[in-house]
């Protein structure tokens, strides 16, 4: 599903955030992306979501070279992905329901569909009873579950998570990972950037390791 071919990424201030990265992730896989701070994990995920563009090389997603995508098409790519962030990126002035509904509102779903899908997504992350709450009143783990519900509400085939458990204690982290495993079991491809090696070991999944922009384990 995902092919990286000789991918380089230079930032103006940092020459080699990624250097000649090559790997393949098959559909339905759940893969961890590790490496020390500054190794390029976030950069790699940003390239996939077209938050950044590659400096050279190609990224093939479902047979399409995403670098060739016009800027105006980027939103439509993002609607096919589920993005999950370390800092959750929730809107604090809207309640849980509206936060999860956002991708559907943007994509122009009907009120009825939105209700149905949002409820289903919230049910999966066990937060149906909090739909009227404001994110600020929720714990870190709950906020991250809202973030996950928002990422899966569009039923994406690919989930990208950048340090999804970075701000959570080990127990909550385990809970979140179990959620990811559940989604993976029904066929969603998942790529998770994390430096929580203990957690990664427990889950026994394929791991990609970056070191100063280079791939060291595939």
């Amino acid at each position, binding site marked *: 599903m995902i092919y990286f071919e000789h991918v380089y990424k230079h930032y103006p201030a940092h020459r080699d955030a990624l250097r000649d990265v090559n790997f393949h992730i098959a559909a339905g896989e759940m893969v961890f992306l590790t490496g020390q701070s500054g190794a390029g994990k976030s950069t790699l995920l940003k390239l996939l*979501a077209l938050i950044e563009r590659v400096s050279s090389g190609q990224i093939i997603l479902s047979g399409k070279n995403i670098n060739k995508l016009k800027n105006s098409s980027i939103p439509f790519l993002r609607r096919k992905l589920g993005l999950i962030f370390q800092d959750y*990126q929730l809107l604090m002035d809207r309640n849980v329901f509206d936060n999860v509904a*956002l991708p559907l509102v*943007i*994509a122009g*779903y009907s009120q009825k569909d939105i209700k149905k899908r949002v409820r289903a997504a919230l049910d999966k992350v066990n937060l149906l009873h909090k739909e009227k709450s404001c994110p600020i009143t929720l714990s870190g783990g709950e906020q991250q579950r809202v973030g996950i519900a928002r990422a899966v509400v569009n039923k994406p*085939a690919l989930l990208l998570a950048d340090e999804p458990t970075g701000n959570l204690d080990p127990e909550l982290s385990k809970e979140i990972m179990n959620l990811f495993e559940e989604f993976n079991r029904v066929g969603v*491809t998942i790529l998770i950037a994390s430096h929580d090696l203990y957690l990664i070991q427990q889950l026994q999944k394929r791991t990609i390791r970056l070191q100063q922009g280079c791939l060291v384990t595939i």
Partner: protein
Amino acid sequence: MSTEIVLRRTTPPVLHQMQSILFCHWKALLMTFKELLNTPVATIVTATVIGISLSLPAGLYTLLQQAKAFSSPWQDMNHISLFLKKETDLESINKLRTTLQTLPHIEKITHITPQQALQEFRDYSGFGEALDSLQHNPLPHVFIIDPQLTLHNKQQLEQLFSTLKTFPEIDIAQLDIEWLQRLYSLFNIFYQSILLISILFSLTVLLVIGNTIRLNIENKKEEIIVIKLVGGTNRFIRRPFLYRGLWYGVYGGLLAVLLVNGSLWVLQTPVKDFLLTYNSPLQLQFMPVHDTFLLVVMSMLLGLIGAILAVNKHLHNIELE
């Protein structure tokens, strides 16, 4: 759940999308309306600045329109005013009057004595007390000549005028049509000035709305980023800001209407008294309906344009990071 990503654009069916686009616009309209009410002070300040800016040209225009309407009946009244020399005694005045009556083309001669003129001036000018302190009446005798109504030809009128000018007792002869012509050129100058003022104040409104929208964009930076991350198009992100501009314009326009009509109301009594000096029963009118409508629509358009300019300039400064 599918296992492959298909990079196609359409998610919901097309017909459905048409409906939902309309629904999105309606929702954005309502949402921005509510948001503006949530920050009443900021909204009121912006609307007030717009309202004041627009009320000045709109108010001046309304006044001028009415001044023009008020003066138009005079177009048919070609008076000639004859101001007599101060030293002329009553006997000569009466003799002159008799002579004038023998002239052709004169319909009516009205004699206004200095006492009458002073009284009229005292009643309507508001300078009553100042006039009381005068030692003697500075006003001359005046004859107002109404030419025959058949005398509509300007040349004939001017002929009569030059005949009248030759009498030695007459200090100043005034063909009031000249005065009217001057008034009309003055009106034109005012119209041009109002046009210039309108342009300047429209620019002010654009700047005010642009700046307000820029601040709105700053305040919504996080929301914009989240929307971009979950696949919001630029159009989706722009929409609420454009509606905001529209609302600011509507509020500002309505406020301008209020300000103009409020000012007209305040001016009504003094203007009525002033018009009475011309024996006119006319009154200052409020803004006509179509002008009101035009003002609000213009204001709305200015709001929209200001918002479009601000959004185009500032929205892509917001980068995902």
